[in-house]
């Protein structure tokens, strides 16, 4: 049997050339490796790497906006130092107030990028290709969740670092300042981890229910708006009628409970101006942790049943 001519430059494109087939005898890794591979692919996808340039715009723009105030404060640290020296009363951004102040930008980041992670494979029906490989349904969901949480963690950590550097530079004795400053900055790390996990779980759990990005995004916004507004409304009604339990409803709020929990790490009491009701930061922390568990369970439930 003669093989058709190979490597001929004149052959029309699309012909099948016979170069022989080699079997693969090498290593085959297990599911941990498959999860890691999906984690890496997801993480790259969140930031738009390996995708068209337009896919990089939204994540980097939103991340930039979120970091901007801290970076500005860092850039003007020498000016601020002079102002403080001249006796001016300057209110600076602090580690504990940064996320609560700008959390809406982080939420927008989730709205923009979370649907990308879970809708794309449903919409394009790629899931059967994963689930017929060494990748279980739950593992798929967890790898996606981990990658979003990691991306958020980095996103949130950048301004914290900028604040830290700025605070250090504002002190006359730089090296001494590092020693003074880091115990104050350190609680930001576990707080950031909590926020990342919380937002990632909520975002993916809701997004995963629709194969369409737009519906997922609307679903996320609707969920957060309603879950923030309804407890607040009931609380204000409860205030006038003298209810004793209506403040507990704030525990179901997605963003407020994360904001409240952040203060727990810094060991502060909640300011009643920002947090209505009588809840402590510890209660908010418990609520945030519970929300992570529940939302992860919802995500897992969805992926147990998602058609493939």
């Amino acid at each position, binding site marked *: 049997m003669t093989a058709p001519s190979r490597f001929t430059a004149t052959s029309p*494109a*699309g*012909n*099948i*050339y*016979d*170069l*022989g*087939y*080699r*079997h*693969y005898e*090498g*290593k*085959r*890794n*297990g*599911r941990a*490796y*498959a999860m890691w*591979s*999906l984690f890496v*692919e997801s993480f790259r996808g969140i930031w738009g790497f*390996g*995708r*068209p340039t337009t*896919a990089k715009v939204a994540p980097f723009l939103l991340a930039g906006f979120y970091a901007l105030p801290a970076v500005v404060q860092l850039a003007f640290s020498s000016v601020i130092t002079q102002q403080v020296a001249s006796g001016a009363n300057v209110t600076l951004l602090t580690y504990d107030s940064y996320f609560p102040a700008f959390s809406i930008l982080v939420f927008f980041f989730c709205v923009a990028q979370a649907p990308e992670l879970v809708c*794309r*494979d449903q919409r*394009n*029906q*790629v899931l*059967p*290709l*994963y*689930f*017929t*490989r*060494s*990748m279980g349904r739950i593992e798929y969901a967890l790898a996606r969740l981990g990658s979003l949480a990691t991306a958020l963690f980095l996103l949130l950590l950048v301004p914290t670092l900028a604040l830290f550097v700025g605070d250090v530079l504002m002190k006359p004795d730089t090296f001494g300042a590092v020693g003074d400053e880091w115990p104050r900055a350190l609680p930001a790390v576990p707080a950031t981890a909590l926020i990342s996990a919380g937002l990632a779980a909520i975002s993916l759990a809701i997004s995963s229910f629709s194969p369409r990005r737009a519906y997922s995004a609307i679903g996320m916004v609707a969920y957060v708006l309603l879950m923030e507004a309804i407890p607040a409304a009931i609380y204000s009604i409860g205030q006038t009628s003298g209810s004793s339990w209506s403040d507990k409803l704030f525990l179901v709020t997605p963003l407020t409970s994360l904001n409240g929990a952040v203060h727990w790490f810094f060991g502060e009491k909640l300011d009643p101006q920002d947090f209505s009701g009588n809840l402590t930061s510890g209660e908010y922390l418990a609520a945030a942790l519970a929300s992570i568990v529940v939302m992860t369970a919802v995500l897992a439930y969805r992926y147990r049943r998602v058609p*493939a």
Partner: protein
Amino acid sequence: MALIETASLSKYYGPVKALDGLDLRVEPGIIGLVGANGAGKSTLLKVLLGLISPTAGRASVLGMDSVTETRSIRQFVGYMPEHDCLPPDVGATEFVTHMARISGLPRTAARERTAEVLRHVGLYEERYRQIGGYSTGMKQRVKLAQALVHDPKLLLLDEPTNGLDPAGRDEMLDLIKRTGTEFGITVVVASHLLGEIEQVCTYLLAIDAGHLLRAAPISTFTERTPVLAVEVEEGADRLVTALAASGARARQDGPRVLIALNSEALYDDVRDIVADLGLPLVRVQQERGRLEDLFRDAAPTAGSAG
């Protein structure tokens, strides 16, 4: 060892019986899995892959149970779904490499295998372009490539020629044939197009309404039958009457006359009668079985049996 074995395998979707007590034994080769739309082909493939679990009965692939040893099976099975399954915004290389890594291939091996497999399926310069811009034929090639990239022992293809033009269809069939023969990979091709199955497969599994109609080497379906077909331009009815008068069992089928071939003398009788009647003869040939007959003949029997 049988590559695929099922024992009274059943899968019900509510009242619908997609698979109903299916008993199969598949040996290595290129196996055609034929049946009408909704006969249970896709369901069978999904059960074998462990994507869905059977309602009753059991299936084993490569000697491993499809429910309890799904993970071990999947390392050695490649699956090309019937539907579109490619994200539009990445290149073929990136996508297939990713799928290779999900199959457990280390990074460099994944890259090498991807390059090799894409070349095998006939994707060259365009493999770096985004899949969204591909033609249907190219997409089908990428789908086949991702099923082959981890060098499976068994390849399950669900309607691989769906949506292809005749040229693309022939290329895909050729590719399947080479995969089965040269690469030494057992291929199961599910299709409702019998012509395709006839072209590439060595063995045929015919299923209908979740039952096994027949399982046999493809040659047994297409061997000669004891029927002589005589085609005349006109006067087929007169020929039938004359043949009947001479004692032969004949019936008209359009311009053709089909005669039960029971002795060599029949050829002489036919020649004489045609000559006597002065009919314009086109051809005389012994009928070959066609795969279509399988369904035409078997459908009523299956119905009456069930």
